[in-house]
């Protein structure tokens, strides 16, 4: 592939300027680029706090944290800074696919490991995969594919799809359609950042769908769910976990009750270490951990597990150590596929009320040992 040789050329050219990184004396320098200000800061803060919680009490990691403001150009600049000035060994932290696409290819081309605690764009799982890139969260399509599988098993026949008109939205719906065997009655792509869904809800009401499956991240999902509850339309609602995570449920409230959503983690997941993680996180930060916090936590655990086995300066050995994924994930069984993306169970969760708190409860497994479909295109 020609792309490969270009990347190799970039690697060689940049290696000349990015001076040799060594001599940390058993310590490993981690650069975390994440979103700590602006509208999307909640996710970045959770990833950071989860990561720091896992690293707490250990002196193995030397962590540099910077705020990307959810802007790709800032993220690129910070990556350059961490590689060129801070001389970090490993990068992590990015929340958004578009920022990951801006940073990851050039970071791995410069010979740095990158561990993704959230975003998993398909390009990085397929043709653009790299031996130095490990996704500790999910490939972007995973929750959607699991949603489609669960729908097949639960007598859902006619689905109305809705997502924002941008790559993550379109990819998500494509993922659902890949596994779902019933009928798609309509697909609607809304404006990114749209806050009023009256028009879409009217369309849904008029359709003969039995279920709405949607992906609307952040404020968009909050707006939709509140307006949905006020519309009185009686159809099943499903989606990936991103619209129903703890931080968001607090803002939607009871309007979200009964919604089914897919995720690889929940705070009530009964696997070793999870209850302790949830408790420790609450003790440390005074709030419930989110899925992002869990991913940040796992990312740090993975990194420290590999450090016990290999030196980061021995790239091949360190890569192999990471690949083993020899750590106790709060998600339970966790392994890497050949494209360094997770093989893991995806659960179906339902939004319920526990006391005064609206939260998620696991109701079943949507997909066992799920991995993504892009691995075949990955040649490393």
């Amino acid at each position, binding site marked *: 592939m*020609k*792309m490969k040789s*270009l*990347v190799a*050329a*970039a690697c060689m*050219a*940049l290696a*000349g*300027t*990015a*001076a040799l990184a060594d001599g940390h004396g058993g310590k490993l320098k981690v650069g975390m680029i994440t979103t*700590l*200000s602006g509208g999307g*800061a909640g996710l970045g803060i959770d990833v950071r706090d989860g990561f720091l919680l896992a690293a707490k009490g250990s002196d193995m990691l030397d962590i540099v944290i*910077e*705020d990307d403001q959810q*802007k*790709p*150009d800032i993220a*690129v*600049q910070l990556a*350059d*800074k961490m*590689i*060129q*000035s801070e001389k970090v060994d490993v990068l992590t932290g990015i929340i958004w*696919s*578009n920022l990951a*696409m*801006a940073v990851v*290819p*050039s970071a791995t*081309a410069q010979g740095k490991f990158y561990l993704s605690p959230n975003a998993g*764009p398909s390009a990085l799982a397929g043709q653009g995969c790299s031996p130095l890139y490990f996704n500790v969260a999910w490939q972007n399509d995973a929750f959607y594919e699991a949603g489609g599988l669960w729908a097949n098993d639960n007598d859902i026949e006619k689905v109305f799809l809705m997502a924002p*008109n*941008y*790559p*993550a939205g*379109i990819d998500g719906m494509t993922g659902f359609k890949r596994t779902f065997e019933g009928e798609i009655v309509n697909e609607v*792509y809304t*404006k*990114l950042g749209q806050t009023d869904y009256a028009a879409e809800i009217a369309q849904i009401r008029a359709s003969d769908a039995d279920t709405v499956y949607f992906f609307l991240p952040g404020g968009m999902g909050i707006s939709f769910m509140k307006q949905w509850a006020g519309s009185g339309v009686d159809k099943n609602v499903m989606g990936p976990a991103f619209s129903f995570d703890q931080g968001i449920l607090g803002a939607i409230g009871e309007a979200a009750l009964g919604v089914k959503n897919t995720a690889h983690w929940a705070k009530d997941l009964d696997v070793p270490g999870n209850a302790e993680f949830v408790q420790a996180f609450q003790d440390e930060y005074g709030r419930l951990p989110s899925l992002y916090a869990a991913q940040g936590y796992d990312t740090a655990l993975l990194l420290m597990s590999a450090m016990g086995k290999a030196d980061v300066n021995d790239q091949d050995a360190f890569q192999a150590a990471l690949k083993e994924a020899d750590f106790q994930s709060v998600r339970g069984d966790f392994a890497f596929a050949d494209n360094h993306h997770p093989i893991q169970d995806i659960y179906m969760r339902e939004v319920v009320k526990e006391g005064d708190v609206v939260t998620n409860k696991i109701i079943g497994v949507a997909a066992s040992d799920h991995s993504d479909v892009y691995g075949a295109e990955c040649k490393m």
Partner: protein
Amino acid sequence: MRRETILNTLLYLAMPVAAALALALDEPFLITLITRAAIFALAAVGLNLALGLGGLVSLGHAAFFGIGGYAMGILAHHAQTYTPVIDSWIVLEGTKSMPVIWLVAIVSSALAALAIGALSLRTSGVYFIMITLAFGQMFYYFAISWPAYGGEDGLSIYVRNDFPGLNTLDPMQFFALVFAILSAVLWWMGRLARAPFGLALSAARQNAERVETVGLGPFRLRLVAFVISGAVTGLAGALFADLNRFVSPTMFSWQMSGEFIVFIVLGGVGRLFGPVAGAMLFVLLEHLLSPVSDFWLIYVGAILLLVVLFARGGLIGSLAGREVAHG
């Protein structure tokens, strides 16, 4: 020499000197940071022609910055994947050659400026501000929802484009290239302000009736200024995309347009080196303040507010005196 001339010389030399120091100290990231400031300065120098000399407060210049960025992104993307840009009755190949990319960036942003300007310049004052802002948003939403070139994800270009005889991936060499362009544009803008066109444009800002009465049409003067201004900002956009090896719709965002105005006002409105001083100061603030607090933008806001309210004339105005140079 006047104080402003001395200050301009110092500002101008500050960038290459700082870059050389960074090279000597083996801090290549600082060179990248200076390059970033130089590119922002170039974008704001472009806007300053319309805003400072022409009095046209455009809150939509991010549109041209973004178009320049996408000119680079689209051409390089096609060159990288060996697919033609247009493949119908005419076949147009992508390219990795910077000069060609720059030309395309300049021409396409100039055309966009012609269309936006022809509509917006029918109005003035607050209308003009709001309309340019709205057109900028139009491009932003279009870039996000148009799927062909990555939509919101943007486009990654894995290696910088080529310039004959240079290794553009070397921070110092890329900086030198950007600095040369900035110098050339600054030189031209300095000349332009004193050329017949500059005099007429500046007179049209001060008194449109006067310019009409001597037989010159202010609308055409402003439109041409807007087009040149958009083209320069577009060129900066192409360089910015190359600096990051990445282009995305955030280049079109209205905050970007706001930041360009911030550079100009921080540095000093209507001064040739105002945007340069402003961009350097802004990048420096960003670099120094963001580690201090998660809420560092509050400080930026406060500083900006103080400058607008109490330090009119910006950095250069405060250091070199209020008088704006003429002739």
